[in-house]
């Protein structure tokens, strides 16, 4: 069979206009099963907009978007839960899908927040909330996972662990991931394909290619191309989310 069968979503020269101004234009990319595509770029470069085009949230777009799956998991950049809505983590997990209790527990433990299951969503910290969002998205066992800055507000050790988890999930579920991140360090090491945006695609390719591209250097500075070396140091213990210390 042709490789087309592996494509989950494909953007062809896509763009989105608001008040006669393009937020992003001329984006072509495709996300395949088991691959991680990362969007990078400065604030306002159209990363989230591109993700929303791919997800079909924006309907009146320029260009084309072809989506080949309905099993989608989405972690939006921002969600605010109003006080008027009493909702626990457990209620939030079944928001768009009926997921068994075991699956919920499994997903929450994977992102390290099982102990928050019966907490009110409004009382979580930023990092805790991100972990819940990620758990909800993966518990659906999606074919396409769209993660818009999934680790914002997560502590540094947690950040690395979550990126490793995302990598593991893409392999286990064989799902395609469209990832948006500011964090060049960790992302560049775990990604198959990088798209660097700045209102348009300024360069794309493998992480190594992009890091050496002169447009990328112009956008992020010379220093950024050196970040390919993965940050690594060893701890002799880990802090669990319940606040205990565990020796390795």
């Amino acid at each position: 069979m042709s490789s087309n069968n592996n494509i989950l979503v494909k953007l062809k020269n896509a763009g989105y206009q608001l008040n006669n101004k393009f937020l992003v234009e001329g984006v072509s990319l495709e996300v395949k099963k088991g691959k991680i595509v990362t969007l990078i770029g400065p604030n306002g470069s159209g990363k989230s907009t591109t993700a929303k085009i791919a997800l079909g949230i924006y309907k009146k777009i320029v260009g084309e978007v072809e989506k080949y799956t309905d099993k989608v998991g989405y972690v939006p950049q921002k969600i605010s839960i109003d006080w008027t809505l009493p909702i626990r983590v457990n209620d939030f997990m079944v928001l768009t899908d009926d997921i068994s209790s075991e699956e919920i527990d499994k997903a929450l433990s994977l992102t390290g927040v099982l102990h928050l299951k019966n907490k009110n969503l409004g009382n979580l910290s930023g990092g805790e909330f991100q972990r819940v969002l990620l758990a909800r998205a993966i518990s659906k066992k999606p074919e396409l996972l769209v993660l818009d800055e999934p680790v914002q507000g997560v502590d540094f050790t947690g950040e690395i662990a979550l990126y490793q988890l995302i990598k593991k999930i893409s392999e286990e579920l064989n799902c395609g991931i469209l990832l948006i991140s500011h964090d060049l360090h960790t992302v560049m090491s775990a990604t198959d394909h990088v798209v660097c945006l700045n209102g348009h695609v300024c360069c794309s390719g493998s992480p190594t290619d992009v890091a050496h591209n002169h447009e990328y250097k112009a956008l992020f500075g010379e220093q950024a191309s050196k970040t390919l070396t993965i940050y690594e140091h060893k701890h002799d213990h880990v802090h669990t989310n319940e606040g205990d210390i565990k020796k390795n």
Partner: protein
Amino acid sequence: MFDDFFIRALFAGIGVAFVTGPLGCFVVWRRLSYFGDTLAHSALLGVTMAYSFQFNIAFSVFIISALIALILIQLQKKTNLPGDALLGLLAHSSLAVGLVVIGFLSFIRFDIMGLLFGDILAVTVDDLLIIWIGGAIILVVLKLIWKSLFASTVNYELAEAEGLNPDRAKAIFTILMAAVIAISIKMVGLLLITGMLIIPAAMARNVSTSPLQMVFYSIIGGLLSVILGLYSSLEFNTSSGPSIIAASLFLFILSLLKIKQTAGLKN
């Protein structure tokens, strides 16, 4: 059993409370209380239409309210006026037009007070049928759209991205709002309907920790308000609609005690 006007009133109120409970929660969650008010104000126009063309009142109110909701959606697309200004425009102009039309229908004697504040004691067996059958349909439809409506209440984009069609759910919910106003106008009147939607739901929020719990307490609150309000209106000879709303206010104030308790224990 339904020969007694008081029993009919009681059953009408109970039927309405079962529907306003869950719908009221969405009104509070989605910040639609002024929207509900606008639809309720336009109900007067619906009532005059019913008298003019010999329609059933509930049916006519439903049609006019749904129409006003449609006009609102169109206006929102066409103009840049803020939402609350558009709502005020529609609420007061439809109320005014309704009153003007009443002026022309001088050959019919209108019970204006009954229209504005409800006349639950004049509920007929036909009204009861409309409330219970209409109410059952509303609840079944709400159950069907529950998942996408609730998900889009939490986050529109999440619901859209994961294939739940929030726009359709919103449109259907708007029709349900028109329907609930149509079936409850006789009970509390068009000035007090939104109170019946919001106050029990607001009370429920103070004592709930999950969405379904809030819906449950909202229904219980509505039922208690109806029973308490009706019996006290019988006892003190006050008008029934305002008595029901006053009873729901009393329950809301009680729920504030509970919120104070939990605030002290927070985390």
